């Protein structure tokens, strides 16, 4: 059973107690791509953590003391320090915890990863818009064309670098920061958007072989079940697929 297979906390729930010493807590939601980034980093670095899932359609009042707008992901440690914004949480974890460094040591290479992240910045919004359009029965040809253009830009980078991954020959931070949206292309119904970007397809295949990515891969049927309930406005969507 994965670390985050727990029921969401919703409005009216009691706040969880303080974070125990030696552990870090992430407020998350099993299907959210942004908190997926944080969970990938926690897993990749082997950081002991606990996951508290939040019901995004019925947020507990106490959650606004963790994030002013009730967004996820948020990290909370045993000193009650809170960190939010997915990229900031990932950097914080890489800085704070020992072991495998996900950001390169070289200053210029680190800057390059951040520039690549800028190149990626339209992808989350475009993929979400495509999903919503398709689910609402609207056509999304223009949106898909825009998404394909963004993917072409990323394809160019991989071609120019001639490496498997965005940071070189091994998986690094930037790959994990991109991954959640590529994992969702199929279940969102827009997998054909990478038809014209062969290097990106190879990257996707290589990422699926990464142990961290594998460990957190979301079952397609469960994801589809979540999406169906989500677009029916059901507050139970977020707990879909949990056994207990």
């Amino acid at each position, binding site marked *: 059973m994965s670390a985050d297979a727990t029921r969401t906390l919703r409005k009216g729930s009691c706040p969880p107690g303080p974070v125990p010493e030696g552990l870090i807590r992430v407020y998350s939601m099993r299907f959210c791509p942004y908190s997926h980034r944080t969970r990938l980093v926690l897993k990749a670095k082997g950081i002991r953590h606990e996951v508290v899932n939040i019901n995004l359609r019925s947020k507990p009042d106490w959650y606004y003391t963790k994030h002013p707008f009730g967004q996820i992901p948020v990290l909370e440690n045993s000193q009650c320090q809170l*960190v939010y914004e997915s990229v900031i949480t990932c950097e914080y974890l890489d800085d704070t915890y020992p072991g495998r460094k996900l950001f390169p040591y070289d200053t210029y290479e680190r800057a390059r990863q951040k*520039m690549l992240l800028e190149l990626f910045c339209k992808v989350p919004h475009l993929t979400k818009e495509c999903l919503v359009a398709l689910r609402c029965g609207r056509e999304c040809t223009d949106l898909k064309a825009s998404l394909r253009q963004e993917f072409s830009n990323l394809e160019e980078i991989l071609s120019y670098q001639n490496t498997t991954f965005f940071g070189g020959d091994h998986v690094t931070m930037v790959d994990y920061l991109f991954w959640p949206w590529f994992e969702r292309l199929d279940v969102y119904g827009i997998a054909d958007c990478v038809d014209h970007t062969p290097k990106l397809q190879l990257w996707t295949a290589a990422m699926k072989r990464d142990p961290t990515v594998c460990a957190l891969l979301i079952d397609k049927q469960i994801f589809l079940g979540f999406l169906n309930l989500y677009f029916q406005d059901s507050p139970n969507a977020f707990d879909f697929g949990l056994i207990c």
Partner: protein
Amino acid sequence: MRFCPFAQRTLLVLQAKGIRHEVVNINLKNKPEWFFKKNPLGLVPVLENSQGQLICESVITCEYLDEAYPGKKLLPEDPYEKACQKMTLELFSKVSSLMGRLIMLQQSKGDSSGIKEELQRELNKLEEVLTKKTTTFLGGSSVSMIDYLIWPWFERMEVLQFDEYMAQTPKLKLWMAAMREDPAVKALLLDGKNFKNFLKLYFQNSPEACDCGL
């Protein structure tokens, strides 16, 4: 470009850390073709070193300089304090675009009441940060990266006399006064008259705008 707030961030860091540098100003209304080899988007600032390495995006250039060069560290070493500075920068992110729109509306004499309210709301968020921290500067008791990253817009607010906003944000007002005493800020202060002339020419799409005052 001498009047660009984003490029000013990089210049402030270069100044604050005493980094030997040369400046090449780009005419943003008439960009040289070779500049697109430095940044495909044709935007400033861009850093280039002797190994031909290029770094774009103002915040990325500032972090790069802080990491690559010795001397005073502008970003805190403590990971949590560093994360706090980045979260504060997120709070600021709407201010730069709102100010841009406000200036455009001023130039075209359009109705800016809606934007003014939004801008006030965003400034109040920064006031809250200062209130919680109980320090003069946004990162503590001395100037640090977050102060330099947001300063260029506050400098322009002063020059354009957007004083009305500061009435609701007394701590920000004190912060601005303290920033004006900082050596790096002082060294790069805009000339008010030149800046206003620049704005006028820039919004007329004049290729002379960027060289105003030279």
